[in-house]
């Protein structure tokens, strides 16, 4: 009689709990609290936290890989979409269908601000090398500075898979913290008179220009950096679907249900990679610190490039819009708008900041492509 009882007890998760599992379950609960109560990036943080909770409950075998004799766990199969680099480009497809490149086409010089803001990626890359990390790990950490979650997940899944959960969490955490991180950097690097600069109203952009932009961008960017094709290709396809206006049902699906389906799959599988052995290490702390440096460096790089453009244009460009070059669409552009209004209530910079903001999405995808071409297989 005691034997079955003993078997039941030993096969119960409760008796197999380790201290690492307990810590991870507590962290998962904290993230669930932040997602639900504080609403920090809830669309992604909620499934990430729940995935984390599920895999850290002992004996669930949700991430067990398939063998010849037994099939794998549910999350193992779902994780293949992340591991094989499928979900992030699909998110880019959806993102493309929501982005308006109009402000960028109206003022193409802002493309360079989107490029300058990627400097944070390479500052953190360099910092990670100084910490003794491998170039692949350094690239994955650096890409946090792109402030682009799907790009960070894509590159990390290809180069340093073991860092995936912490890089994803750091990337989305810093994106949620844009309103706290960016304003002090913007204010520190600009003078009040620079912040007060009013920019000329953007010219109208024709439908033809908006249709040609994704096609031409795809051709040239992919020709120059072929490894950026999955991200750039999907981003531009989504945008072309939207701008062509010939498949409104697809546009509607990409902007709503499809985006949420892929988001939940991406979130839960990224969270499922976060077990105690991976997350509770000194490397996590390094990633968090370097990620912050990457993010702050990107913002500073964008603002400094904005200052150069301000000088070159005889004060026609407000340098603050450079801060929006770190992607984080549209939050970074909103911060610039807020800072502009704070200095001068009649200074509206939102549309001007959207140019570097969407350029930052292209810039971070190109940066990921460049790093992939350096260190990818």
């Amino acid at each position, binding site marked *: 009689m005691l034997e079955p009882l003993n078997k039941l007890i030993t096969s119960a998760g409760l008796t197999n709990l380790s201290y690492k599992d307990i810590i991870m379950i507590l962290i998962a609960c904290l993230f669930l609290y932040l997602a639900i109560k504080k609403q920090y990036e809830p669309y992604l943080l909620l499934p990430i936290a729940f995935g984390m909770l599920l895999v850290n409950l002992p004996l669930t075998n949700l991430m067990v890989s398939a063998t010849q004799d037994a099939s794998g766990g549910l999350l193992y199969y779902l994780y293949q979409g992340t591991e094989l680099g499928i979900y992030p480009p699909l998110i880019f497809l959806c993102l493309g269908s929501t982005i*308006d490149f*109009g*402000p960028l*086409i*109206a003022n*193409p*010089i802002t*493309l*360079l601000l*989107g*490029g*300058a803001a*990627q*400097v944070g*990626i*390479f*500052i953190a*890359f*360099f910092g990670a*090398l*100084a*910490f*003794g990390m491998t*170039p692949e790990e*350094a690239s994955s950490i650096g890409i946090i500075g792109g402030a682009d979650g799907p790009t960070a997940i894509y590159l990390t899944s290809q180069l340093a898979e073991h860092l995936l959960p912490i890089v994803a969490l750091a990337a989305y955490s810093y994106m949620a913290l844009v309103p706290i991180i960016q304003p002090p950097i913007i204010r520190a690097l600009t003078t009040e008179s620079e912040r007060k600069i009013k920019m000329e109203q*953007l*010219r*109208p*952009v*024709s*439908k*033809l*220009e*908006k249709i*040609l*932009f994704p096609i*031409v*961008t795809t051709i*040239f*960017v992919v020709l*120059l*950096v072929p490894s950026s094709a999955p991200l750039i290709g999907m981003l531009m396809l989504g945008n072309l679907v939207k701008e062509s206006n010939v498949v409104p049902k697809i546009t509607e699906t990409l902007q709503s249900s499809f985006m949420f389906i892929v988001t939940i799959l991406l979130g839960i599988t990224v969270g499922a990679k976060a077990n105690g052995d991976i997350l509770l290490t*000194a490397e996590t702390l390094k990633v968090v610190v370097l990620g912050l440096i990457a993010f702050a460096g990107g913002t500073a790089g964008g603002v400094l490039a904005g200052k150069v453009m301000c000088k070159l244009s005889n004060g026609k460009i407000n340098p603050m819009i450079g801060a929006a070059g770190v992607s984080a669409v549209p939050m970074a552009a909103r911060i610039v708008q807020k800072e502009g209004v704070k200095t001068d209530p009649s200074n509206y910079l939102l*549309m001007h900041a959207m140019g570097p903001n969407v*350029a930052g999405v*292209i*810039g971070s995808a*190109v*940066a990921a492509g*460049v*790093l992939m071409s*350096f260190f990818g297989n």
Partner: protein
Amino acid sequence: MFNVDYAALEKGLELMGVGMLGIFTVLFILYLISIVLIKLFPGKERKDIV
């Protein structure tokens, strides 16, 4: 904690320069193409307001 490998750092600096140059090259070419396209297709009907 700081196991500094100077050869790796030198390589890192080099990659940093090449990487940023690569990004700027791509975006600058895109910028030039945008300018050319704007000149080629000025857009007769400009109804959309950005």
